[in-house]
C-alpha cells in the first residue's frame, strides 16, 4: 500500500482538487492506492470533516493519523465500515488505541523507535486481541530503512510479533521516493508519504509492478 497524505488544515475546495488528482493518479499509475488523513489541526471537527469528505470521494484504503486517542475515537466513527488503518499508537497512549481498534474493528499501527519496546507494545496489543496490526519502527533515512527492515524481516522467522506489515513514514519529494523504493525492495511495507509528485508516483507504480 502506498498512501499520500491530505491534511485536515486544507480547505474543502483544495482538498477536493487534491483528492481528485489522487484518484486520477491511482487509476492511471496505481499510486497512490490509499489516502492518509492527518490531524494537523489537533482538533476533532476539521479532522472528522476531512474524513467524511475523503470517504465520499475516495474508494481505496484509508489511513487516519492522529496521536490523540480522544480525537481518533470520535473521528473514526464515520469511516469505520471502511476498516481504516489508524496511525498514532505509541507507548504513551497504547491502551486507548487498543480500545479504539477493538471497538471499531480498525487496523492499528504501533510506532516506536526502540525495537525491544516496540515488540513489547505489539505483544501487548496482540494479547488484547487486536488482530490487524502494523509496525512502525520510525525509520528516518534510507540507510536505517534498509537495516531495520532487514532486521525485522529476519526476526519474523523466530518472533511472531515481527510478522506484521511494516510501516514506512516519509515526507515529500525525491528523498521520500528513494525511502519508499528502499522499503519496497526490502519488504512489502505500507508506505505513507506526505506528498509525491506525478513523476514520483509513476516511477513507484512501475517499480511496484516490477518487483512485487
Amino acid at each position, binding site marked *: 500500500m502506498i498512501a499520500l497524505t491530505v491534511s485536515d488544515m486544507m480547505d474543502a475546495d483544495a482538498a477536493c482538487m487534491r483528492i481528485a488528482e489522487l484518484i486520477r493518479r491511482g487509476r492511471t499509475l496505481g499510486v497512490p492506492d490509499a489516502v492518509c488523513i492527518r490531524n494537523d489541526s489537533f482538533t476533532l471537527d476539521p479532522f472528522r470533516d476531512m474524513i467524511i469528505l475523503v470517504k465520499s470521494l475516495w474508494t481505496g484504503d484509508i489511513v487516519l493519523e492522529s496521536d490523540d486517542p480522544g480525537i481518533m475515537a470520535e473521528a473514526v466513527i464515520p469511516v469505520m465500515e471502511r476498516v481504516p488503518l489508524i496511525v498514532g499508537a505509541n507507548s504513551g497512549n497504547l491502551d486507548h488505541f487498543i480500545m479504539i481498534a477493538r471497538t471499531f474493528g480498525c487496523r492499528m499501527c504501533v510506532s516506536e523507535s526502540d*525495537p525491544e519496546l516496540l*515488540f513489547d507494545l505489539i505483544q501487548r496489543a496482540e494479547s488484547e486481541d487486536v488482530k490487524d496490526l502494523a509496525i512502525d519502527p520510525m525509520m528516518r533515512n534510507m*540507510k536505517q530503512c534498509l*537495516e531495520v527492515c532487514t532486521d525485522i524481516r529476519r*526476526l519474523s522467522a*523466530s518472533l511472531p510479533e515481527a510478522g506484521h506489515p511494516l510501516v514506512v513514514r516519509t515526507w515529500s519529494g525525491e528523498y521520500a521516493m*528513494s525511502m519508499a523504493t528502499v522499503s519496497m*525492495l526490502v519488504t512489502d511495507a505500507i508506505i505513507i508519504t506526505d506528498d509525491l509528485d506525478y513523476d514520483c508516483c509513476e*516511477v513507484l507504480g512501475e*517499480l511496484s509492478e516490477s518487483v512485487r
Partner: protein
Amino acid sequence: MRLPRTSRSYTSEAEELIVGKGDYIIGGARSPAFLDLDNARHRRPVIYGEVWDTLDGYPDAAASMFSGRQTDVEEWAVMWKELGADGVCLRLTGKDSPELVKRISERTRLPIMVSGATEVLKDVAGYVDGTVLIVQCKGIAQSLDLADCANGHVITVDCGSGTPAELCQEIQSKGASKVIVDLGPGIMGPSLRGLRERISGYRLDGLNGVSGSQHPVLCDVTPSWDGYKPDVTPRRASMHEATVALAAMMAGADMLVMKGPGAADMARVYGEELADL
C-alpha cells in the same frame, strides 16, 4: 523484550579487481549489499558514465543534459569526470578506436570500459596498455572470442540464462584471468525482479564460498531509457534510471553503467548514503 541477534556471517568474500591506472577497486563485498547488520564493507558500487563515438540513435532527452559536449567524444568523457563518475563506458564504432581509448584514458585518468564489435575490442585490448580496461562483451560468444586476447584487461561475462560460475570458469580457462559477471540489463519492468534475484543469488553464493561465484557483478542500466518516446522529459527518464540503479545496487551489483548524468548523480548519492560514507 530481549530480541535475538539477526546478524549473519559468511565464509567467503567477493573478489576485488583493480582497474584503470591502479587507483580504482571494484568488488570486495563481504556481506549482502550495504548491510551493516552483516558487517558490510563501507564501499559503494562504482558508476561508469556512457559515452558514444556517434550520436546516431542517441536519445535527445539524454543528449540535452550534456550541454553540447556530447558532440565531441573526448569532451563528453571529460564531462563525466567533472560530474564525479568513477569511470567512462565507451561505445565504439570507429576504426580509430584504439587511439581514441588511449587519448581518453590519458585526458581523464579514469578507468575505461569499452564495448563494440569483436574486432574493434580485440584491437583496443591489444593496443592499450598502462591502464586496465574493462572489455564489455555482448553475449557469451564475444566473451569467449575476447578471452584469449585479454592482454591483462578485465573481460565481462555476459551470462544470459547460463550458469555464471561455469561460464566464468570457461572464460578463465581460455586465458582471461580477470572477469566481471554481467547477469543482465537493468530495465524497469517484469525482468527487474528476475535480475535482482540473479544478482542477489550470485552474491550470496559467493559469500557462502561457492566456487566461481566471487567475481564482481556489473549491471548496465542504460537500457532503462530504451522504452521511452522521444518526448520523455529528462527528469522522468533520470528518475527511472536512478531507481533501476538503486534496485540493482541493493541486490548486490558492484558496478553500474549509466546514461544520464542526473541519474548517475542520484545513484552515487544513494550508494554513499547506503554505504554510510
